[in-house]
């Protein structure tokens, strides 16, 4: 009986792995197709830039960024927001009840004054306190919203949306440094295609980069292994996963770090779930759900341009906290939207992406854990066929390496994350060690996140200590 169970289990895991690999190969090709399309789109950038600058029809964009205890980096980052090379935008910073000097620093540096404001709560958020605007004309695009702490980023973004003026908004974090053409890159799909409701830009880490007055002046890979591993993970997520799904309009997530959304659809879909810990995925699923429910055509696009640099969690403790939160958020999102799965009404999202995410992302840590326990058990009873084990291990490892190389190549092709070849080499070396050092950690964090959610443990967003990027002398 035991042998039958193990044989059945072995085949189940084998076919699961093969299906996963096949899906990755399909995503590789789809991502390549998306990249090809991108190269075929508006190539003459100065021309399009001038069109946007001179046209009265240029769509306006609000950058909405919540800040919670970000006193260290808030001024630099807001400067990078304000320096966007785009003719029609505003910056809305939401001070989410910070306990440190975030608001004070903003007021002092940007000469803000409190202005009377009629706050219309189109989406529910924690109580609004005040609205600040600058007395200096050069900061005329800046608006700071002060509100009570809502415990989640989603709540803060909702408050920002209630104040935002333009028909499109960018959701980003205040610890992010935006590239000067971030909005411009994201608005291109809106210009070129119909019915675009969300555009996701590539995000990477600012660790290792050199910053001057809120701008990245040199892009290099960090020396520390943890951020390197995370960069590899981001590359895979954006340039392979999202880029691939985007080719068939089946994206299920636009990163909370940087994404452009149609404000009208976002508000109609109810805004961000105020209690959600994966507010980005939750929002997009609800937006797509809203479009499908109302029979409205939609497109969600991933672009290949690096728009945003964020400072990754610098130490193990903070990575663990972040990933536990993500794990919890994933399960929470699924528990809210599982009804969309396998329903034709929800098109690609319901028939393809959500089931895929459920089987290959949500269940993956559980399957890995069960596999690990089974392997230990088989070792103990001397039932492991070592030749088979080595071949399968080699396959998993080499295939993982192949994925990393493909995304590094894609990244290089689009002129992505780094300025030097040595940085790419460092990234490649990191990808050799990632499966042994980083991946197990992420699996454990996800499992802890699931456990926390299922056991009803109270969740807190938590505070992220920032070092601040390396400033150029």
């Amino acid at each position: 009986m035991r042998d039958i169970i193990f044989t059945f289990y072995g085949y189940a895991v084998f076919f699961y792995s093969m299906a996963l690999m096949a899906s990755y190969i399909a995503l590789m090709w789809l991502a390549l197709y998306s990249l090809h399309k991108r190269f075929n789109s508006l190539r003459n950038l100065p021309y399009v830039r001038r069109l946007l600058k001179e046209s009265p029809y240029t769509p306006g964009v609000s950058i909405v960024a919540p800040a919670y205890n970000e006193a260290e980096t808030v001024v630099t980052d807001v400067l990078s927001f304000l320096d966007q090379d785009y003719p029609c935008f505003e910056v809305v910073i939401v001070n989410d009840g910070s306990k440190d000097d975030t608001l004070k620093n903003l007021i002092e540096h940007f000469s803000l004054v409190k202005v009377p404001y009629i706050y219309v709560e189109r989406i529910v958020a924690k109580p609004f306190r005040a609205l600040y605007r600058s007395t200096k004309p050069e900061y005329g695009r800046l608006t700071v919203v002060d509100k009570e702490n809502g415990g989640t980023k989603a709540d803060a973004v909702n408050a920002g949306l209630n104040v935002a003026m333009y028909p499109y908004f960018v959701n980003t974090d205040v610890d992010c440094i935006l590239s000067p053409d971030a909005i411009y890159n994201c608005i291109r799909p809106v210009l070129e295609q119909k019915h675009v409701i969300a555009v996701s830009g590539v995000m990477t880490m600012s660790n290792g980069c050199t910053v001057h007055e809120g701008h990245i002046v040199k892009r290099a890979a960090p020396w520390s292994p943890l951020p390197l591993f995370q960069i590899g993970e981001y590359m895979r997520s954006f340039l392979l996963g999202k880029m691939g799904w985007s080719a068939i309009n089946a994206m299920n997530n636009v990163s909370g770090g940087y994404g452009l959304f149609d404000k009208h659809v976002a508000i109609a879909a109810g805004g961000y779930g105020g209690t959600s810990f994966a507010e980005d995925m939750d929002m997009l699923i609800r937006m797509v759900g809203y479009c499908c429910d109302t029979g409205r055509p939609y497109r969600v696009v991933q672009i290949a341009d690096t728009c945003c640099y964020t400072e990754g969690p610098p130490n193990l403790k903070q990575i663990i906290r972040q990933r536990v939160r993500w794990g919890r958020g994933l399960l929470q999102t699924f528990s809210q939207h599982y009804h969309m799965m396998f329903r034709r009404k929800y098109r690609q999202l319901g028939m393809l992406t959500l089931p895929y995410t459920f089987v290959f992302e949500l269940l993956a840590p559980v399957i890995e854990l069960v596999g690990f326990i089974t392997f230990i058990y088989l070792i103990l009873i001397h039932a492991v066929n070592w030749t088979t084990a080595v071949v399968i291990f080699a396959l998993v490892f080499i295939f993982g390496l192949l994925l990393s190389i493909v995304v590094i190549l894609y990244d290089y092709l689009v002129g992505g994350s780094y300025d030097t070849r040595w940085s790419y080499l460092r990234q490649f070396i990191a990808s050799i060690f990632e499966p042994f050092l980083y991946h197990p950690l992420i699996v454990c964090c996800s499992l802890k996140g699931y456990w926390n959610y299922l056991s009803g443990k109270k969740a807190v967003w938590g505070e992220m200590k920032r070092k601040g990027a390396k400033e150029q002398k």
Partner: protein
Amino acid sequence: MHDVYFTWWDSLRYYYYYFEHAYAEYAFVVQVSYFMSVFSVVSIFVMFLIMLSIWERRSRHKRYRRKYAKYHEPRFEQVLNAPTKLTQAECHDLVQRRPTERLKKWQYREQLGLITDIYERLRQEKTTEEVRRVFYCNVRVLIAYLGIDVYMEDLLREGVRADRLYIMQVTQQFHLKVAESTLSRLYDCKIAALRKTVRIYYMWMSREDPFRFLEEGYDNDFVLIDTLMIHHVFAMRRGAGKPLPPLLPYAESCTDENLRATMICEVGWWSSDEEVHEVKRYFNSSNELCRASAFSTVGQRRYVPLEGELIKAFSQQTEDLRRVVLRSVAAIGSGKAIDFFEKVACQTSSDTTRRCALYCLWHYGPAGKAAFEQLRAADTPERQQVYEYIQMMSPTHAATYHGMRMQASLQQ
């Protein structure tokens, strides 16, 4: 005697069979895993090769661009900054191009890229008149002198889709002329983006029947960039003194609502007063976008004779459109709409519309400000914040606010 029993080819075959049959005796799972591993290794190797070749090519292009820019950039700037139109000989004196054999395509591309960068940088420093009178001519002379125009035509004829699109955009950017025979193959091209760009170019350049493609419509491919390009091409034609046709007939005939709305808006920019007057027929359109465009057009043109019609249409609109009407009436600025704003501010059920009416009143000249103060004095203490807010809106923010509302009404 040289008997060779085991050649390199045999070694290759030996290892091929060795790899092919390794794990042949094992279970299906192992064989598949083994096959996938070998596939992955080969793919990794190929990826490395591709990456190396791209690296090498990019470095070569970058080196060329750097060297080329070092020598030519100041010279190109001289040509583009010349106060008068240059001849080929004068251009030669300034650039002093070394006589070389025919360049490779990528070298032309790099040269064109450099000129594009310099062009955009210098263009910002020049007045519209300078750009029109001298700048475009000298760019054309420079491009012809370097032989890039031939390269561009070649690419338009035989290039891949991306190249052709790029060349068409450069052509529009520099106001270059392209042979009709080259373009005629692209008017009905299957690639929508390219087809539309070529048709826009035709609108700009053709003297024969420039707007015939506008009559044919946009085959439901109309996107926002087309709005931007149409506006740009109309502006260029107007700037060059070329006549524009009446636009409302196009708005009438097209099936795409966005294109129709664009045409109605363009009436406000370029058409005669008589045509602006005709826009009133869209005040009762069943399409909200067209109505919004019509209201905005009247405001944008500050066309006083339709102010009364706008005010009359106010009550039949949705709240969003009512605000568009309010802003248009304010933009007309005849000074006769104070009662209208006051009435709306007092009677509307929507706080947002009320705020908009008060905002319009505040920006409606001294009489409007006085009316605003009167309303403020009569209002309750709880609602004073609205008045204070409107008064404190910084000029930048107020301008943004106004611009945004116009856009929102058009885009949504």
